[in-house]
């Protein structure tokens, strides 16, 4: 295969993944909700429920406060775009994604930060009590979660001598089932960060209806119809991105390599299995734990930060 055709295939790969993640992300959220329902002895609304909700929301008329600024109206699109991009640059099926060259892991954290800053600003835009409360809490959670996530990613990039996601995943996938001690710590930290950043129990409750305990939901109270739909979609994309990042870092085995077309079906099958397992695990975690008070959250996230730094130190000490 010549360079050119390879590049075209890589672009095709990238576009396929772009399309795939955006369509599949609500399915993952639906699966997590369904698992939770089963664990709580409910029958649940089915894994397709998020699609129905999105469809319903897109059909409605958007209601916006009188004093909303253009920033408020642009934010759903910015957040959605960022999350879509984030989910699209994480190698999940195959490692050759051309766009990964433009944004490495640090930029990935940056993309998450862009979305977070914009949604917090939009929450403060209307000037309601709950909105600014939510923005403050979101920033509180994230200023501890973001460095922890960076440290987790640093550990992985130290091992693979690169901050490029494809290179990291490629390196990690080729050490067959060796558990890096540093990555074990990092994995623990990553789970905590995942819970916090995706507004899951024990830090936040995605299905809460009690305003005073809300974080993420408090920020989006003023959104309705298509804006709300985009934000909900972006949330499921974010969950998808985080879970696939976890899979890419900690269990990348079986991912298809550059130009390996025969390995693709197997890679897709394995990925589906991993996603289902991770979703079920998340549901289990959420079911067995209770929500914390907001000021316990910094301690919880501080633990994640320390664990991640510990992982990095262990990498330095042991050299693996």
């Amino acid at each position, binding site marked *: 295969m010549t360079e050119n055709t390879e590049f075209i295939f890589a672009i095709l790969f990238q576009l396929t993944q772009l399309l795939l993640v955006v369509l599949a992300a609500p399915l993952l959220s639906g699966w997590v909700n369904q698992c939770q329902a089963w664990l709580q002895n409910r029958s649940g609304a089915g894994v397709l429920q998020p699609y129905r909700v999105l469809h319903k929301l*897109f059909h409605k*008329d*958007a*209601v*916006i*406060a*009188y*004093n909303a*600024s253009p*920033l408020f109206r642009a934010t759903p*699109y*910015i957040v*959605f*775009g*960022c999350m*879509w*991009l984030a989910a699209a640059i994480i190698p999940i099926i195959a490692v050759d994604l051309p766009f990964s*060259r*433009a*944004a490495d892991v*640090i930029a990935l954290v*940056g993309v998450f*930060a*862009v979305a*977070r*800053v914009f949604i917090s*600003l939009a929450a403060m*835009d*209307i*000037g*309601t*009590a709950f909105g*600014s*409360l939510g*923005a*403050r*809490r979101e*920033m*509180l959670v*994230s*200023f501890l979660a*973001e*460095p922890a996530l960076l*440290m987790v990613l*640093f550990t992985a*990039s*130290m091992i693979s001598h*690169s*901050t*490029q996601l494809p*290179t990291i995943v490629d390196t990690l996938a080729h050490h067959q089932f060796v558990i890096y001690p540093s990555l074990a710590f990092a994995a623990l930290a990553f789970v905590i960060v995942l819970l916090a950043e995706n507004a899951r129990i024990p830090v936040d409750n995605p299905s809460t209806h009690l305003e005073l305990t809300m974080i993420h939901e408090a920020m989006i*109270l*003023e959104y309705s119809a298509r804006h709300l739909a*985009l934000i909900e979609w972006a949330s499921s994309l974010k969950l998808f991105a985080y879970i696939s990042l976890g899979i890419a870092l900690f269990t990348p085995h079986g991912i298809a390599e550059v130009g390996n077309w025969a390995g693709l079906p197997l890679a897709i099958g394995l990925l589906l299995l991993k996603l289902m397992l991770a979703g079920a695990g998340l549901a289990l975690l959420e079911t067995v734990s209770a929500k914390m008070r907001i000021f316990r959250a*910094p301690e919880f996230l501080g633990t994640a930060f320390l664990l991640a*730094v510990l992982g*990095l*130190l262990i990498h*330095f*000490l042991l050299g693996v």
Partner: protein
Amino acid sequence: MLGVVGLWVKDAARFIFPLSAAASLVLAVSSVLALSTAPETLVLPLGLPDLPFHLRLDPLSAFFLILLGAASAGISLFGTGYFRHLEDKTLRLLCLEYHLFLAGMALVMLADDAYLFMVAWEVMALSSYFLVTTDHAIPDIRKAGFLYLLIAHVGAIAILLSFGVMQGGHGIGAYTFDAMRNAELSSFWASAAFLLALFGFGAKAGVLPMHVWLPEAHPAAPSPVSALMSGVMLKTAIYGILRVTFDLLGTQLWWWGVLALGLGLATAIFGVMFAAVQADMKRLLAYSSIENIGLLLTGIGLTLIFHVYGKDTLAALALIATLYHSLNHAMFKSLLFVGTGSILHATGERNMGRLGGLMRKMPWAAWLVLVGVLAISGLPPLNGFVSEWLLLQAFLLSPGLPNDYINMLVPVAAAVVALAAALAAYVMVKFYGVIFLGQPREASLERAHDAGIWERIGMGWLALACVGLGLAPVFVVHQLDRVAQMLLGVQLGNAANNWVFLTPVDIERASYSPLFFLLAVLGVMLLTSLLVRRLYHGRVRRSAPWDCGFPAQTARMQDTAEGFGQPIRRIFEPFFKIEREVPSPFDMHPHYQGRSEDRLWYILYQPLQHLTEKLSAMAGLLQHGRIHLYLTYTFVTLVVLLLFV
């Protein structure tokens, strides 16, 4: 070249600021050209008998002149509009001081001997003191100005001593920088010179124990002056540290790097923590400047460590990250400071608790300041992210240093940098959200007007610089390579052959392309909004805010500046000295007051102040105002001297 900047003093102050902006621009452009040429030197027949003024334009000074020119162009344009309402006498005085300040800074960067350097340094310090105390009728401002003057001079003494150590007692001719470059210093004296320089320049930059003047002086000065001080003057200190450490001192020791790294990290965390709890918008920005200076010092420390251990490519990377961040900080911090100037003009209010909802009243200022806010928060694809990215890359590449303890220190340092960067985003969301978003907290804000045309142009220039520096990192890094070549003798090099992707070491290792990034985000956003509109509809209905159906919503229910900072105050409680006045539950007109102060002031400065007062009281005992007593003193001194000699 610089003489142009300082010359116009007389009338027609109205035209002087735009002219000076143009001159700054010329300065910046000619400095860009000077980056690629060989160092030029010039000896002026002025100064001391044996020590004429030496000037030298090499890549390091050229880079800082670019910074000065580019930032002050925007600030002067803004100043044209901002100072228009001053009365003539004040305006003329201010105009003189302003341009003396600019000329002083330019001379500091061009000076090639210790004497001219100190003269320029003093011109800069004194003119900025007078600028800070422009509104000298207010006692608090006089106090802030005095504190600034005092610390500036303690610093200046240390710098002078450092030059003294470096010239090594070889007479007055040895005060040229060339002589210092060639002087052979033992490691003890080199360390002494480094420590003195670090202290002296650190006092100017606001490094940790000497930071107290910054949050006092910045809010006191008029906004364009705060912008110049924070954006450019603090960088002269960074320039000084770089000049002394890498150019004048021939040898470096590893522990200097560790010291600078530790000091930088402490300063960064301290600054951002205090920024989070401020309610005065200019104080908040001043503390944020302390944070950024901390990050710069961290970068210098890292450069030193790599350089000493012979990892020259990495040292070049860390140095370039530091320089890039200086440039970025000059742009976005100036933008934010002049932005607060517009707000002050429009509302007369510095307290964020009395602002709010200004985005609807002053859209120009709001959108331009938003660029600065996003840039300083380190968000891609703007400029703050690039320098943060480069610095983190330098940290990530660090393993393999021969000293195990430093190897372990580096990841912890990276963690602290990440924490400071994340907290900076918190601070900036607070800054922007409380001032520009939400509902106006006071009725008087309804009369606020948008920034004037000159103010818009000035802010627009700075915002454009933020975007441009963010989108063209390859070009900038390529230019900065020349400074690295001069100071460290190496350059990254391979950045040049690929203009889209920024790849500091090699493409398998790390790459970043803000242009692709921006295009992808914009593309995805446009696609989404088109699809949503095409497939469904774009109908919008306006109504009152919902707020969970809560009917009695007022502007007072929004988060205040104090409220937004409360989590930080609570988490980092031991670092603050917190005083609270809480009203009793039966109070009909409850009054709540809370203050978070700097513990260091009480631990370090108050004892010093008491000590000084005691010493001066003791010296006062000698003074009685009677002539015969003084004659006796003279006689006793004479006798004692005769006995000894």
